[in-house]
C-alpha cells in the first residue's frame, strides 16, 4: 500500500546480474560417486599416490557417514534431500590452458570473467591484486605469479601445488580440517577438484592482495574447491575470494574447504564476497553453499581475521573459525549475511581459545528481507589453559518487512575463570520513520533502504580491502532490490 513498501518490494525483485551461462566444451565425469570417480579425478590431475590414498580414505569415511547420520541436522535450514548420485563431480573446460600465457585461455572464459568485472589480463588488473580464477572444477588462470615468486610467495592453483610443492601440501592438507571433520568436509576431501594454494615464507609481507574468483558454469555439477593458505613466521597475507554462478532452476551443491595456518607472528586476512546465485524470488534454484572454513593460529602472536559478505546462495551453511593455540594469538570474525526472498543462512563462527592471553572478536550483522531466514550461530570456548583469554561478541540483526526471520544462537563455554567475555546483541527493524526521514531529504525509497543497511554493516565493511568494500556495498544494494515492502 505505502510506497515505502513498494520500493522495498521493487528493490527485492531485482534480477541476478551474474546469471549468464558460458557456452564451452567441457570435459566432465559421469554422474555419481564411487571409488572409480575418485580415481578418475585423481588420475585427471596426475596426482601422486598420497593424494589418491587420502581421497580414498575420505571417500570411505563419507560412505559410512552417508549410511548412518548423513548430513548434519542441527542447522536452522530446510531443503529437500540431496541426491549425491545425481551430481557430476568433475567438470573442466576442455581446452586446458597452459599457465604460461593468458592468450591460450579459451576466449569464452576470458569473456566470462570480463563480464563479471574480473579482468584477467595482467595489465588491466587492479593495481596490487593477483587473481586465481577457478572455472567449474579447475583453476584457469593465475595472474602475477612471477612478481609474487620474486618475493618468494607461492600462489597457484591447488592442482599445481600438488605437482610443484607436494611436501607443503602433504604437511598441511587436512591439518586444520581433517577429512573426518564433517559430512561436507569429508565429501570435499574425497572429490575436491581445485582451488588455490598460498605459501608466504618467513618474514615476507605479501606484496599484492591475493584473490580467487570462483565461477560455477556447468549444470548438474558440484563445485568442491579446496584452499590452503600458510603464513610462515612473521609473514602477512591478505586474500579475497569472490563467487558467482549462472541462473539455473536446479539447485547446485557447493561444498568447499578452506584451511589457514598462521605460525609465530604471522597474519592472515581472509575476505569473502559470496554472491552465488540465490535462486529466484519464489525460491526456485540457487546454490547450496555448505562450506567449512577454519584457521589455526599455531604460533605466538599470530592473527587470523575472517571477513565475509554473504549475499548469495539459496542456503548458506558456514562457520569460519579460529583455533587460537599460540599464546597471544588473535582471531577475528566480521560478517554481513543478507537473506532476501526465500534465502536461508545459518552462519557464524567458532573461537576456540587454547593458548594463554588469546583474544577474539566477533561482529555479526544479519539482514533479513522478503521471506529470508537468517541465523547467527556462534561458539566461544575458553579451554582450561587459556588464562587471560578475552572475547568480544557483537551480534546484530536487521529486519526489512515482516515476513522474514532473524535468529541467534550464541554458545559460550568457559573452563578458565580468568576469561573475560563481553556479549552485545540487538534486533531492529528498518523503521518507517528512518525511511521517511531519508526520503524527506530527497533519497528514493530503495536508496534510503540501502543507506540504512550500509550504515548497519559499516563496522564489517571497514575490514574489507578498499576496492572490495565499495563492491560489497553495491552488491548489498542490488541484493536488496525488491525488498522494500
Amino acid at each position, binding site marked *: 500500500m*505505502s*510506497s*515505502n513498501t513498494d520500493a522495498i518490494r521493487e528493490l527485492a525483485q531485482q534480477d541476478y546480474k551474474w546469471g549468464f551461462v558460458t557456452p564451452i566444451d567441457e570435459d566432465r565425469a559421469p554422474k555419481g560417486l564411487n571409488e572409480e570417480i575418485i580415481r578418475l579425478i585423481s588420475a585427471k590431475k596426475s596426482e601422486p599416490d598420497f593424494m589418491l590414498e587420502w581421497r580414498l580414505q575420505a571417500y570411505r569415511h563419507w560412505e559410512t557417514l552417508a549410511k548412518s547420520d548423513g548430513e548434519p541436522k542441527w542447522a536452522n535450514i530446510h531443503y529437500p534431500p540431496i541426491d549425491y548420485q545425481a551430481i557430476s563431480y568433475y567438470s573442466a573446460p576442455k581446452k586446458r590452458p597452459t599457465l604460461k600465457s593468458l592468450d591460450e585461455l579459451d576466449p569464452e572464459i576470458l569473456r566470462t570473467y570480463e563480464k563479471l568485472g574480473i579482468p584477467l589480463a595482467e595489465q588491466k588488473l587492479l593495481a596490487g591484486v593477483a587473481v586465481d580464477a577457478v572455472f567449474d572444477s579447475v583453476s584457469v588462470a593465475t595472474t602475477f605469479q612471477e612478481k609474487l615468486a620474486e618475493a618468494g610467495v607461492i600462489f597457484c592453483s591447488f592442482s599445481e601445488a600438488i605437482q610443484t610443492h607436494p611436501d607443503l601440501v602433504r604437511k598441511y592438507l587436512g591439518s586444520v580440517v581433517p577429512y573426518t571433520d564433517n559430512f561436507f568436509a569429508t565429501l570435499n576431501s574425497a572429490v575436491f577438484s581445485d582451488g588455490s594454494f598460498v605459501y608466504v615464507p618467513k618474514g615476507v609481507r605479501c606484496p599484492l592482495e591475493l584473490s580467487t574468483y570462483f565461477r560455477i558454469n556447468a549444470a548438474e555439477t558440484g563445485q568442491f574447491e579446496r584452499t590452503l593458505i600458510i603464513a610462515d613466521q612473521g609473514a602477512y597475507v591478505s586474500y579475497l575470494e569472490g563467487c558467482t554462478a549462472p541462473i539455473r532452476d536446479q539447485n547446485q551443491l557447493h561444498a568447499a574447504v578452506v584451511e589457514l595456518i598462521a605460525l609465530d607472528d604471522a597474519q592472515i586476512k581472509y575476505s569473502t564476497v559470496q554472491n552465488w546465485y540465490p535462486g529466484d524470488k519464489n525460491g526456485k534454484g540457487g546454490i547450496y553453499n555448505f562450506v567449512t572454513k577454519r584457521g589455526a593460529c599455531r604460533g605466538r602472536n599470530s592473527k587470523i581475521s575472517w571477513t565475509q559478505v554473504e549475499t548469495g546462495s539459496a542456503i548458506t551453511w558456514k562457520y569460519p573459525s579460529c583455533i587460537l593455540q599460540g599464546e597471544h594469538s588473535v582471531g577475528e570474525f566480521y560478517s554481513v549475511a543478507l537473506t532476501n526472498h526465500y534465502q536461508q543462512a545459518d552462519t557464524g563462527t567458532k573461537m576456540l581459545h587454547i593458548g594463554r592471553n588469546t583474544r577474539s572478536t566477533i561482529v555479526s550483522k544479519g539482514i533479513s528481507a522478503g521471506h529470508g531466514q537468517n541465523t547467527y550461530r556462534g561458539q566461544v570456548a575458553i579451554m582450561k589453559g587459556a588464562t587471560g583469554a578475552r572475547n568480544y561478541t557483537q551480534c546484530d540483526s536487521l529486519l526489512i518487512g515482516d515476513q522474514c526471520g532473524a535468529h541467534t544462537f550464541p554458545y559460550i563455554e568457559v573452563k578458565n575463570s580468568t576469561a573475560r567475555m563481553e556479549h552485545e546483541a540487538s534486533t531492529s527493524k528498518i*523503521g*518507517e*520513520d*528512518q525511511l*521517511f*526521514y*531519508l*526520503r*524527506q*531529504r*530527497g*533519497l*528514493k*525509497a530503495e*536508496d534510503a533502504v540501502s*543507506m*540504512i543497511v*550500509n*550504515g*548497519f*554493516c*559499516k*563496522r564489517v565493511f571497514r575490514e574489507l580491502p578498499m576496492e572490495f568494500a565499495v563492491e560489497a556495498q553495491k552488491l548489498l544494494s542490488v541484493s536488496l532490490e525488491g525488498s522494500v515492502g
Partner: protein
Amino acid sequence: MSLLEIKDLHARVDGNEILKGVNLALDSGEVHSIMGPNGSGKSTLAQVLARRETYEITAGQVLFAGKDLLALKPEEAACEGLFLAFQYPVEIPGISNAYFLRSAVNAIRKYRGEDEVDAIDFLPKLRERLKLLDMDEKLLNRSVNEAFSGGEKKRNEILQMAVLEPRLAILDETDSGLDIDALKVVAQGVNAMRSPDRAILVVTHYQRLLDYIVPDYVHVLVDGRIVRSGGPELALQLEEQGYAALESAAASSGSAA
C-alpha cells in the same frame, strides 16, 4: 500565484481525523508561524505536506509551486524544494553526517538534471554552513544524529536546511530543546536563509523564538483548523492569554458548521 496553497485539507491517521479543513497560503519571501495547543495537528500538517504516507488525505487540495503536492512522493516533494526540519530528528547509525548531506544534495541535483558534486567540491560549502550555525566540524564525521544531544539534533536539522536550500522550509518546533544561546544561533541561521525566493513556515509554542525570527504572519491551529490569523502581535497576545479563548471560539465555530 502563491508558493504554497492549502485548501480545505482533511487528513486522518489510524482512523482519527486530525486535520479538519486547513486553509493556508504562503508566498515566497514570507515567514509564517503556526502556533497551537499540543495535539492540535501542527506536526500532522507538517508531515502531510512532506508527504508522509501514514497520513490519509480525505479531502482538500495542496498546490506547491503550481504542482499538485498531494500527488508527490516524499522524495519528489523534497526534490521540488520542500524541506521539513523534524520535531524529532531520526538517527541513522553508521552513515556519516557529511556523506548523508552530500547524498541528499546529489539526489536533489540528479532529480533536477544537474551534475552531482563530489566530496572535495562539497566540503567548502559545508564548512561555511557549519560556521553559520556555530557547529563543531566533528559532527560531520559522526553518524547522522546518533548520540547527538537534543540541541545538536535541532541544529543539525537547520544545517541540512542551509545546505539543501529549499524553496519552502517547514520548521517543526526547532526551538524546543535549545538553550538560549543555541536558540539565538539557530534563529540567526534561519534568518540568514530568509530570501525573496524562499518561504519559511515556523511551528512553535513560544513567542521567544519569534522574537528572533520575526514572522510576517501568525496562524493559530486548534483542533485541526486554523482559527485565527494575524500579524506578529497575535503571538504576543497568545503568550498573554493562552489558547483558551481561541479554543472556545473554535468549538462554537465547529458546532455552527
